[in-house]
């Protein structure tokens, strides 16, 4: 599974200081090279949203976050129509490119996992 919720080496890399120092510049270069920041997106805006889990996660955003997300999507659509990236001052700075949605999606996946566990639990008398 690939994509923002797929398997990731990031936790392993972050756990080692040497690896972090090596990889961080490459990761920053790659994030900029992907080009989504030039269209004013955040990384979590690229999350595939056509499934129940992410739809529920979107409902858990604060009204402000929901509004900002809709705004970014519209602005990027307009930029796409014009076949040009946004003006440089509208690009997403690295500091604002935070995972605002992924934690909610992970919570929901964990809840579903727990529900499955309780649905199939076997009780043993001690």
């Amino acid at each position, binding site marked *: 599974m690939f994509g923002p919720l797929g398997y990731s080496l990031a936790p392993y890399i972050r756990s080692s200081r040497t690896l972090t120092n090596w990889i961080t510049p490459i990761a920053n270069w790659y994030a900029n090279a992907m080009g989504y920041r030039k269209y004013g997106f955040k990384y979590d805006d690229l999350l595939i949203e056509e499934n129940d889990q992410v739809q529920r996660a979107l*409902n*858990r955003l604060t009204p402000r976050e929901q509004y900002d997300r809709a705004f970014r999507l519209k602005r990027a659509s307009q930029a796409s129509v014009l076949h040009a990236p946004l003006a440089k001052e509208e690009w997403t700075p690295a500091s604002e490119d935070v995972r605002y949605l992924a934690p*909610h999606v992970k919570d929901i996946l964990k*809840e579903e996992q*727990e*529900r499955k566990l*309780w649905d199939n*639990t076997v*009780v043993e008398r001690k």
Partner: protein
Amino acid sequence: MLAARASSARNVQRIARSFATVVETTGVKVAAVDYNQPTTSVTVLVKAGSRFEPKDGVANALKNFAFKSTKTRSALGTVRESELYGGVLTSTLGREHLALTAEFLRGDAPYFVDVLTSFLTSAKFTRHEFEEYVVPLLAAETEAAAHDPATRAIDVAHTLAFRSGLGSSLFPPLHSDITVGDIKSFASTAFTKGNIAVIGTGIDSSTLSSLVEKALANASAGSAASAPASKYFGGETRLEGHAGPQTAFIGFGTTGGSSAELAALAAHLSPAPSVKWSKGLSPLSSLPEGTSVQPVYLPYSDASLFGLLVQGSTSAGVTEAGKAAVSALKAAAQGIKEEELKAAVGKAKFAAASAADTRDGLVNALSSKIFSDSVTSLESTLSALDNVSASAFSKAASSLLNAKPTYVTVGDSKLPFADELGL
């Protein structure tokens, strides 16, 4: 014969020690009663009733947040695991206390005490749980209360009688702006050791206190919440009713705790017959057809509300029944016959004693006393009723009538005004 006598002697002993003593473990008050029932109940009582809420409806929202996710287990985990144990979890809100209750089979206490106390120590109060679970419950509760004229009348009567404090409604406003932050901050001020008491039935006192001690070891220390002393005001208001019977509530408030005289007065005025198919001998037993009068006596820690709830299918019937109720109250203030007083005291004593028979009644009786450390036995409640004299009885009734009445109607515009009933 002998066996019967022996068992009745045992019952007397039981009554004598039927109210528990309060033990204090690490700042939390614990009381337990054990009659060898097959099931156990543990009630965690928090001084977080609507009286203490900083904003309308926050206490109710906190009540509906009970048993949602904590650091130890999620909301789903709490429900499923409790189901496996076969326990029942309830949370109830009063004007003084928030009560979290678990009822379960003997021996499952460690798990259920943990469920109750983990809400006090490590509730998460997440925003999505508030919006997905709590907000619909708040709306449903407000809606249900709005459709019950008796609940509405008594709720509004509290507001008229005590204004702030005890006057704040048990139900959240229909369109409220409560946020999770409000609930969280109310919980953090309310969930301190001095504010918490634990009542157990069907469980050994030392077992319960050791469990509580372990579970609440790292609860934040703090003294009990104090609210400004209640003051009685009174007043009159008229609400339009959506459904249900025409309702009028004639109330009187007093400051000071519960009194035996008022309990006897409520028993004297109660038209509930002692025998089936009879109308009873109460002064209110001959009411017009289709109407009812119910005495309401609600004692709180520093005030009480006494009232008569008059209901009927037509406003004319309510007017007539209301007039009868007021004149019965006035007659009681003039004086009472010795045998009538005896009957009233007997009725009140039976009500108090049979309430202590049930689990809810026992928890209620203990909860009113546990925070003030003055746990009285059932004996003292009964002997206080025995000591009610005819003069004290009529004096209590007349001092009620001297204050400004609290009068609420819910229903038609034709329902009587307070002065039309002779108040």
